[in-house]
């Protein structure tokens, strides 16, 4: 029996993203106002706050303004206010402006931002307010007392490849809390099991995801207009793959260029990293990157399902916030403000719970009521059928979005609720056309995957059990190779999965130290046998301003 250190807190947020940090700040202030003394902590697997944060991003400042009523927008760590916005349909060589951009898709009054910078800023604000942030510790297990969640166990350190203890072995600690708030971000590893164990997705649409891949480009001085925003549809994804590109102007002549690819495509050969490289073969994009240098790379999945894919939000002793709950507006391409607001609403319920000393489900359910009567619901309700429409391709999706716009959110056939199926089920067997046969990585504008991965600065202790568990590895070399041609090689944007020759056969090699923690494999694997669990705390990408 390993003896573990026990840390007693009142409230523990898991994952230092915008949802948890905004929640922790709000909670600390509410507790202070009500004269209560409670300890609030935030657990973060990255070595520092912000190092695993990645988003587009265009931020709606609404939640930040509510959280910091005394501050003005100039105080927030934004790049620039959106100064110019475009929406284009791309063909292989041309760009065609959309004749009409509906106000619901406009970014007026919003700000180009780096989520990494924003979370670092929120992290500092948190610590100023007396919240403890524990960086470099990953939550690996929820601790139960009967049905009540009473804490989180953090990961052990110092276990070698074979699973035996190394000299500097250090067991993880048990952090006890009256309320555990899961703000792990997209496809959280604790959240995944938690949703299943408590059947929280019952009667909901399954969550559907996309993966965003992006590069930052340092351009010559004076060539990038901060606040410039362009979104595109069409090339390189075409009509059958959900998604589109974004190009945002940041401070100091940096282009933020990225592509979102829906994780519900049919062709197992689709590769988000390669699609981003193809995007850069477009003459317009190429002309914008002329003379620049790629300086950073990253990828992250994002929940696209919308209102009907949001799980039940509370059980006894725990709540779900931010991307872990799926608070993302797919039509507005924004979720940071919703994530922050959800954390703040959870904080309000927790303050009451602490006053009443009652942490069972019937009390914590109050959080869900608060969400339903907040502007989160108003905003997501209007676009509740948005993503489902793209099950019929780009034209179907746009038509459906049009219906939604005119009717306040109804879907195809003027239905109140369109259903959906999980994205990995849509993948079709059999090899399809190779989308990348003409793709040439020139090392200047187009990069192979490992070069991009290098620019994510990701690193992992090599001598540990790979944190990507493939539960039935035989499937890879018997079934999957025949049926789908090992799509893990393609959907992983970081070259983690590789089929290498092994005698006369092949075997799966897991280059786990390349992992950028996007969770795409856990989501998109057609057999659902990949389980992403946290590596040793502090491992993973080191993103500065993605």
């Amino acid at each position, binding site marked *: 029996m390993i003896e573990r250190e026990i840390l007693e807190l009142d409230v523990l947020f898991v994952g230092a993203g915008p949802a948890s940090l905004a929640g922790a700040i709000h909670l600390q202030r509410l507790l202070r106002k009500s004269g209560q003394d409670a300890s609030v902590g935030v657990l973060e697997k990255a070595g520092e706050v912000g190092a695993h944060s990645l988003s587009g991003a265009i931020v709606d400042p609404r939640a930040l303004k509510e959280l910091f009523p005394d501050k003005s927008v100039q105080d927030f760590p934004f790049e620039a206010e959106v100064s110019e916005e475009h929406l284009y349909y791309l063909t292989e060589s041309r760009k065609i402006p959309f004749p009409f951009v509906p106000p619901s898709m406009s970014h007026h009054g919003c700000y180009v931002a780096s989520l990494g910078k924003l979370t670092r800023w929120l992290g500092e604000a948190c610590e100023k307010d007396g919240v403890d942030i524990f960086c470099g510790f990953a939550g690996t297990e929820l601790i139960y007392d009967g049905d009540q969640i009473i804490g989180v166990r953090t990961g052990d350190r110092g276990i070698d490849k074979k699973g035996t203890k190394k000299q500097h072995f250090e067991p993880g600690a048990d952090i006890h809390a009256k309320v555990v708030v899961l703000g792990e971000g997209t496809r959280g590893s604790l959240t995944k099991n938690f949703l299943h164990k408590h059947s929280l997705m019952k009667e909901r649409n399954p969550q559907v995801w996309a993966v965003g891949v992006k590069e930052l480009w340092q351009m010559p001085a004076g060539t990038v207009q901060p606040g410039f925003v362009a979104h595109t549809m069409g090339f390189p994804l075409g009509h059958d793959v959900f998604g589109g590109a974004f190009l945002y102007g940041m401070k100091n002549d940096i282009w933020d260029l990225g592509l979102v690819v829906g994780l519900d495509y049919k062709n197992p050969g689709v590769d988000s990293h390669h699609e981003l490289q193809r995007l850069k073969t477009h003459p317009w994009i190429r002309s914008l990157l002329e003379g620049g240098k790629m300086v950073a790379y990253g990828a992250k999945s994002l929940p696209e399902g919308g209102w009907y894919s949001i799980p039940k939000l509370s059980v006894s002793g725990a709540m779900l916030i931010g991307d872990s709950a799926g608070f993302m507006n797919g039509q507005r391409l924004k979720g940071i403000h919703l994530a922050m607001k959800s954390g703040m609403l959870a904080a309000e319920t927790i303050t009451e719970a602490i006053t009443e000393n009652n942490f069972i489900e019937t009390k914590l359910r109050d959080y869900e009521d608060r969400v339903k009567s907040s502007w989160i619901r108003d905003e997501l309700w209007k676009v509740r059928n948005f993503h489902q429409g793209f099950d019929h391709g780009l034209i179907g999706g746009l038509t459906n979005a049009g219906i939604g716009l005119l009717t306040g959110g109804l879907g195809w056939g003027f239905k109140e609720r369109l259903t959906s199926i999980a994205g990995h089920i849509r993948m079709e067997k059999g090899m399809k056309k190779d989308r990348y046969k003409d793709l040439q990585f020139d090392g200047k504008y187009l990069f192979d995957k490992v070069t991009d*991965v*290098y620019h994510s600065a990701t690193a992992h202790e090599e001598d540990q059990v790979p944190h990507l568990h493939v539960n039935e590895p035989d499937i890879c070399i018997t079934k999957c190779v025949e049926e789908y041609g090992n799509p893990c090689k393609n959907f992983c944007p970081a070259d983690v999965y590789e089929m*290498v020759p092994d005698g006369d056969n092949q075997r799966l090699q897991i280059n786990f130290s390349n992992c950028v923690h996007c969770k795409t494999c856990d989501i998109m694997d057609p057999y659902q046998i990949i389980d992403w669990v946290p590596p040793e705390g502090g491992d993973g990408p080191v993103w500065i301003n993605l």
Partner: protein
Amino acid sequence: MINILVVVEDNRGSMHRMSKEAIAGAQKIGGSITALVIGDNADTISNELSSIAIEKTLVVKHELVSSYNPDGYTEIVTQVIESTSPDMLVIGHTYQTRDFMPRVSARIDIPFIPDIIEVEQDIYTKQVLNSKLNSSVSSLSDMKILSFQSACFSAEDILTGRSSSQNFDVDLDPSIVRSISEEPFQESAAEVDLESAELIVSVGRGIEKEDNIPIAFTLAEVLGAEVSASRPVIDSGWLPSFRQIGSSGSAVSPKLYFSLGISGAIQHVVGMKGSKNIIAVNKDPDAPIFEIADYAVVGDLLEIVPKLIEALKTEKDL
């Protein structure tokens, strides 16, 4: 003329490679050099020092520092500084230095400029922010402590000569030593020292299977080289991890880097781009390794290398 004190590290009974580099550095800086050796092996090491062009060697032997411990070393170095008042203390940037030298710096309040990669008069260059930037530092103080990163100076440049040694008596109170060192940690890499190897034969995925690994060793033997590998070879378990070159392995800068069947992903290249000469053999003419290679051979290493070994052997016999 300035007085320089070099603290020499004991590496299992002989002078640490980085102490040699520190001495070479001190000689380049120029001045009257005193070496300090501490511990049970001090006599053997001072013997090594007797044929080097320095002023003298101070030998400290005391039961409390028969092997390394930070409290004892801090106290001794402090006493030596106080008694000899050098203008500059120079040392290799080893783990041991990182452990005790900050204490010396704090104890007697003199600046410590660690991990220097380049010396230009009184300006010292060190790397910051994960080696992304270089920073130039100088000191306003009359006295300073400098530690040099590996390969900042070359041990080959040591000027030989003659020097004597003398014992230095220290006054050590047993109560100051709060920890006892265990046996020196046996690094797995002790077998090969890639970072100081002059010739390296490095293999990548192009070697195809474990059975072909001996080819690399045969070539290395003929050349008098060490063997290293890129990541896929290590991952496959064909060679132990201390032989890995690249961002998650060692960084090397040999005179000759013989790259066999390595594609040259950036993660590998950052570990060997400092090599003086790079010969690359690869089947793929577009392999990125060729961009940094001085000599590029497009072909199958399994065909080329055995012939090369034969040719080298014949050459040697002649």
